[in-house]
């Protein structure tokens, strides 16, 4: 019988750094390699968040070590891809942490609206 270490609670990881938050968001739709993650983050943020390899792979390393990400079974050397690239995917813990962070940010936004420091979106 094999057993696994129970994951730490999602709240242990909050608040997330911008890099970790955007990497998790980029992986929400599926496995990606590092360069594709950086491209997705740039697209999702309209070019305002541009990750270099130092930030990206430093974050990925820590996220893998803490169980938020894992190397995808697609592994290295997918056909037509650079064999040096590895694919990463979000773990169940990573998804829970992302959801918890989104809920936390949602509460912050609600608070900002209650304090009249954030306008409500105008109806379409």
């Amino acid at each position: 019988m094999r057993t696994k270490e129970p994951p730490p609670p999602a709240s242990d990881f909050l608040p997330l750094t911008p890099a970790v938050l955007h990497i998790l968001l980029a992986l929400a739709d599926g496995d990606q390699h590092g360069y594709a993650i950086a491209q997705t983050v740039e697209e999702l943020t309209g070019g305002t968040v541009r990750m270099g390899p130092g930030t990206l792979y430093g974050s990925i390393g820590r996220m893998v070590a803490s169980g938020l990400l894992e190397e995808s079974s697609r592994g290295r050397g997918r056909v037509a891809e650079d064999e040096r690239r590895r694919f990463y995917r979000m773990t169940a813990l990573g998804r829970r942490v992302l959801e918890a962070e989104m809920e936390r940010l949602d509460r912050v936004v609600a608070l900002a609206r209650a304090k009249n420091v954030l306008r409500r979106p105008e109806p379409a």
Partner: protein
Amino acid sequence: MRPIERAFELVLRLYPRAFRDEFGDEMRAFVEARRAEPRHATPWGAVRLWCHLVVDGVLGAIREQAAAWSTTRARADAPVVSPALLPGNGTPRGAHGHAGSGRALRRPHAFATSGLHDRVRRHAGVRHRRHRRHFGVVDALLFRPLRYPSPHQIVVVTMTRGTSLDDPCSYPDFVDWREQARSFQSVAVIRNQSVNLTGRESPERLSGAFVSASFFSLLGADPLAGRLFAHDETEIETARPVAVISEGAWRRLFGADAGIIGRTLVLNGTRCR
């Protein structure tokens, strides 16, 4: 190799060796892909990319060097606790399988001043990560030979799973190895694990390890104060959870209090002696 990639090679050298081993190839592929983007085809685009890579790379290297230094320092303060602290169904979770043999074990000739030989702890710790292992091998073979008795007879056994070549084994596997292996004089298991120390003025998060009772005897380590684990104290769901703390933890957390032996510590909510 183009100038940008040559420059990035220099930046890459600022990173800890282990980080380069792990991510160097991916980072190079990343830089090549970035350089090939149309927006970087112009001279101005190339300059912007060069600046971005250098700044990001140097800041990243500083972060990784700081993290590596922090990890080394945390290991120096690492306590060692028995598997009795493991919650759940009584099985260590993903325990690393470390097996070894040590015939004619002798006591190490030098000890730290408290519960655990400092070098034993450091060298036991380095076995769990690739970069630590690389450092440990070079350090041991070229500079400072391990001070365990018969170090050439100690081997580390880990599992493979998928692409991972250094995967933890389960505790039942360890038990099977311990009972059935005939090639080893002694078999021990260790799993690195952080624990919460509470019941004091301020809680502490400590890096440590769950180990079997045979761990210390396999390495030939004895405490200078107190005692090490009895066999029944490291069995699953033991009624007598115990802990061994390092000299670093003894000095930092308890002010080198000579009366620490036998005192109760609350680790992960479990009272240990």
